[in-house]
């Protein structure tokens, strides 16, 4: 924990949901392993992208990091402090430093609160709990400046969420997340509910804010183009585990894990000529159920390069070089590539 550069450090995080059966006497009929041993760290000022297909546990990871979902096992360190050991009062103080931008701008805003009140709500809660001292007058001023900064006219403060477009609502969500002056923003698919034209506006806003306010991002998305644009480093998730992490450039130029390769080959290209010549890797089958008891590599059923070893042993994330980690036996040779 000695490294002061590391803002968020996640160690072997697991989130398992019980499957309950029966009406009166609930029996546990197994577990859904939504997140199954995820480790990563986020350095100050960087933006780490977490990508993967639907249901691979990206959002659950973010919720567990934010302590909104109870972790089954594993630890989340924020600025070197284990969040699971904090008292509820300490956790409340710590929450000021990591805020969430939610996926769905329609359900993340209370329809009965005005835009200004929504953005000011965190400040009012913390002022009410005497954790920060700020006068109502200053709250109003701060709200207006946040709205202005996020591209909303402060005159909209009296409007209700339903009077805004999806992009504007997401701006309200961003302004709310910024109101407490956080260091880390957990962006849970912040643009996937928006139109493509609006996506770029929101992404640019987030990018500007990152530079201006020195923010760190954990950016969750399933759109690889968005992540490539936004993130400096990318972690690829599959079935609750991270299979590859690398710089975004490295990952796009030299994907190593067979799953990452398949994922990248599925990104639509704007140029039809190069799209035609590109070799697409089409995976067979579906993602296995996260409730199945299994051994071996999570990707073994669908992997084009599957080996005998993959069926019995699970590969762990290991260094290819200091900027590139992959969990695959294909690269498990004694002479590591540098």
């Amino acid at each position, binding site marked *: 924990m000695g490294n002061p550069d590391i803002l968020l450090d996640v160690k072997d995080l697991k989130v398992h949901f019980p499957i309950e059966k029966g009406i*009166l006497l609930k029996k546990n009929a197994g577990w859904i392993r939504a997140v199954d041993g995820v480790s990563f760290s986020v350095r100050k000022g960087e933006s780490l992208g977490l990508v993967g297909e639907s249901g691979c546990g990206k959002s659950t990871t973010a919720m567990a990091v*934010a302590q909104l979902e109870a972790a089954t096992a594993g630890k989340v360190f924020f600025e070197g402090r284990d969040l699971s050991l904090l008292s509820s009062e300490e956790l409340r103080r710590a*929450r000021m430093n990591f805020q969430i931008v939610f996926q769905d701008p329609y359900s993340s*805003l209370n329809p009965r609160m005005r835009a200004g009140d929504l953005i000011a*709500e965190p400040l009012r809660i913390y002022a009410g709990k005497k954790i920060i001292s700020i006068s109502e007058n200053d709250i109003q001023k701060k709200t207006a400046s946040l709205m202005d900064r996020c591209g909303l006219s402060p005159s909209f403060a009296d409007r*209700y969420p339903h009077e805004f477009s999806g992009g504007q609502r997401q701006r309200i*969500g961003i302004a709310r997340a910024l109101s*407490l002056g956080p260091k880390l923003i957990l962006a849970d698919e912040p643009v996937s509910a928006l139109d493509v034209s609006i996506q770029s506006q929101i992404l640019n806003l987030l990018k500007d804010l990152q530079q201006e306010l020195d923010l760190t991002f954990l950016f969750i998305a399933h759109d690889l183009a968005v992540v490539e644009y936004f993130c400096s480093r990318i972690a690829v998730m599959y079935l609750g585990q991270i299979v590859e992490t690398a710089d975004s450039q490295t990952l796009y130029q030299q994907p190593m894990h067979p799953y990452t390769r398949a994922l990248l080959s599925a990104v639509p290209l704007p140029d039809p000529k190069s799209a035609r010549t590109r070799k697409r890797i089409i995976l067979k089958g579906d993602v296995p159920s996260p409730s199945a008891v299994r051994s071996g590599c999570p990707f073994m059923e669908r992997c084009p390069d599957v080996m005998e070893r993959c069926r019995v042993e699970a590969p762990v994330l290991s260094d290819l070089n200091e900027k590139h980690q992959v969990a695959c036996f294909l690269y498990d040779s004694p002479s590591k590539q540098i």
Partner: protein
Amino acid sequence: MEKPRILKNGIAVTGLVIILFYIIMIIVSVFWLPFDSSAMDVKHVLESPSFKTGHLFGTDEFGRDVLSRIMKGSSVSLIISISATAFGALIGILMGIWAGFLGGRWDNFIMRIADIMFSFPSLLLAIFIMAVLGENTYNVIIAVGIVYIPQFARISRGAIISLKSNEFVRAARSNGAGDSYILFRHLLPNSMPPIIVQISLSLSVAILLESSLSFLGLGIQPPEPSWGNMLSGARKVMMIAPWTAIYPGLAIVTLVLGFNLLGDGLRDVLDPRLRNVR
């Protein structure tokens, strides 16, 4: 914004006017009635409505003035309907939000009790409670209130559960909000529209339920007038003196209509999404 929004809503205003009319009637009835509501007059039995005699709504089989009895009975009906609804709503909503918010075992336990109460037809349950408690005005309130508890519990639980999964609840939690803040600032206000509609329906159904109980002889006891026992008395003479049944019936219908209109209007007024529509 000087004019309260509810006054811009025609439906709600119509309902309010009707209810206000009855409230004024109650106030007047305390100080003045055209005739003594329980004074019998054997010379003027079953007289048809006329200006000449002063019996505007006629007289019943004992010669009592129907208008005076309706006025006297309105306070009974309105008080019972409001207090029974308040009683049922308070307990039911508390049960419902408790069950919905905590979930799990509490939810199961509370809602099974509500299911048991639901399995009785409401009139039968009210009759049962009246038979156990005995016949007086307070017991009518309790009986009707108990009938309402499971309805309010179920509606508020459903509303809380569907709201709980919204991301704004998570957002509030990540913004440092505690359980009670989330419950009272985020969940309850958003669950109000169905509850308010239920309250307005309950107010009107309470009038009907009280009338039914009184009609069956289990509610307000004669000679104390209530709209229900007036109808009950009119049953025997309805064919020769229809005014004895028509006017109390009309009173019930209009007050029920008033509450329903108010409820409809309130739902629109309280929902910001419908505010600028229409």
